[in-house]
């Protein structure tokens, strides 16, 4: 263990108890009280995961997340105070990898953080995968499109890898939630839908008419090799 985490949370009590809980779980934690401070710390240091509260003074969590994505593919977990769909979707679209609803128990947060961290470890399979113009290198965690490197977050990379390992097979949202996000039961299908959208924006020639990652209505998604 010994992963470095950045927690951006304005409520002092939550900040402190999460620090205590995550330290006890073996993480090293840096905290920030507001969005601007959080962004500055994220820029200055290197972290394995950033935990962002949505409601932050000076700059909200979505904006911090969008800023972080401009220079880093570090996994981001959002803490959403409301279970509002809009919050969840906006959070995911701003580049977050996962979210935890407030109130949460510490073990829940730890489980989500571990799941996110697992995605950043190199997978066992190391052979290069080719899918139309894409060249996926599981060992190097890189994707090239027509020879040019495409920057994917760990979640997007895992999602692409999962689909590309069995081209032509339809993956249900539930299966992808299990394989990529480690949700055992009734995960939020928005995680999949938004991540697919972000992935398409990076790898498809025309993201509004995807040729590579197809939506199978009412079922899920499929990657076509040709």
């Amino acid at each position, binding site marked *: 263990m010994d992963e470095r985490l950045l927690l951006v949370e304005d*409520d002092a009590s939550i900040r402190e*108890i999460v620090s*205590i*809980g995550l330290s006890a779980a073996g993480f090293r934690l840096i905290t920030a009280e507001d969005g601007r401070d959080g962004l500055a710390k994220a820029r200055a240091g290197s972290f394995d995961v950033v935990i962002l509260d949505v409601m932050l003074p000076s700059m909200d969590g979505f904006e911090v997340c969008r800023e972080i994505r401009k220079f880093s593919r570090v996994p981001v977990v959002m803490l959403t105070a*409301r279970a509002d769909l809009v919050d969840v979707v906006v959070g995911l679209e701003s580049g977050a990898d996962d979210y935890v609803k407030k109130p949460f*128990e*510490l073990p829940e947060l730890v489980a989500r953080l571990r799941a996110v961290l697992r995605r950043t470890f190199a997978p066992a399979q190391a052979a290069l995968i080719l899918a139309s113009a894409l060249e996926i290198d599981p060992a190097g965690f890189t994707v090239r499109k027509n020879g040019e490197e495409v920057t994917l977050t760990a979640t997007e990379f895992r999602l692409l890898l999962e689909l590309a390992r069995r081209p032509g097979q339809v993956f249900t949202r539930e299966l992808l939630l299990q394989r990529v996000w480690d949700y055992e039961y*009734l995960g939020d299908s928005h995680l999949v839908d938004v991540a697919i959208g972000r992935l398409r924006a990076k790898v498809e020639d025309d993201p509004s008419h995807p040729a590579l990652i197809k939506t199978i209505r*009412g079922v899920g998604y499929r990657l076509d090799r040709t």
Partner: protein
Amino acid sequence: MARRSWVRPGGLRRRLVVAFVLVAAISGGALAIASFLLVRQARLQGSVNARAVEARQDLRLAVAITHREATEFVRAYERTGTHAVLAFPGRTSVPSNPQVNPAIPDTLRSIVRQGKLGYERFEVSGKPYLVLGGEVRSSAAQLYLLFDESSLQGNLIQLRNTLAIAWLAVALLAALIGNALARRTLEPVARASEAARLMAQGRLETRLPAGPPDEFGAWAAAFNQMADALQVKIAELVAAQDRERRFTANVAHELRTPLAALVAEASVLSEQESQIPAPARRPVELLIADVRRLRTLVDELMEISRLDARSEPVHWHEVNVASIAAALISARGWQDRVAVSGGALTLSTDARRLERILANLIGNAIEHSGRDVAVRTGAEGDTCRVEVADGGPGIPAEHLPHVFERFYKADSARTSAGSGLGLAIALENARLLGGTITMTSDVRRGSVFRLSLPLGPPPSGDHPPASQAAL
């Protein structure tokens, strides 16, 4: 609805028209009949009077006529267009025209025998005749004159027909005028009932046009006053309800932040329980349990205020009700107490909401019955039915109408683990999915909650755009 049964639109108008027609027909008919009878009486009497003068003259001409002269005498009448019959007692009658030789009725004969001039009307070979008769002086003969009254009768028939046609025309005219009048008179009534119907549908801005200053005008003004008062009252009620809902939502929301800290803190305490000194351990356990209870309450308050605000999105997917039930039962560790039966049943609905409903119903059954719970799934037509039955003590009848009310507890002294919102939330969610929940309870057999949900997806308009946005 009962009030529908006696309302027949147009009934009053029909009755008004019928009354109008009846009045016109009866008075018109009475007038026509009376004038016909008067005219007929006058014409017939006039005819008798005129003919009587003629007959007296002819009787004088026939004085002392004998049977031998009879044929010659009566033949003269044929030239004037009148027929005559000379009747001699004991002998045959002598007619002017052998074709017109009626048997003279006894009544007329007996009048004539008394020496009077008599008359009678009867038909001879299909033609109406006025028959006048008298005794010829100085002779045993009786002279009967037969005047053809075809044209008089024809005139009377024509008069009758004309009057009948005029009567029909008056009745028809009365119907038309009555209908038009009734329509005009009742139009404000029709307008008012349409306005009332619109208001009942929630269009509270509906008003009646200010009519002329008559009874209907006053009525329209009173109606509009009522509508104004109603609109203001309802707006106040809606505003009050909105304020109350916003307050609930705000309270729940404000509680969330300290609650989020409490939940996180309690979870850390719970992980460190073994290191807590013995005297503090029980208070810590209680604290953790109470934080969980508070969390449930705030979560449910938030959920019900979102349901009230109708801001809840629904994500329609094909889901299997039996597998959702099985999954939630095992996730909550209820396997030993809950038995699921019924086949795999697929319906188009929101999986999370269905899970919420089932969890609330099953959780409620487990908590209140203290017995095992049976869940049965099945389809009936295009409806999915899920029954949650417990073999518990049932719910006393006086509490049955209130079980879905918020914070309603059958036994006020009893402190239960539930927030008192579980069934209300289940019902609101079922309604959101286009279904409902009903329940029956029996003191011997326990309570049964029945969830009905449509099997198919809702009309496409009901799809919240948000659920499609991310696809």
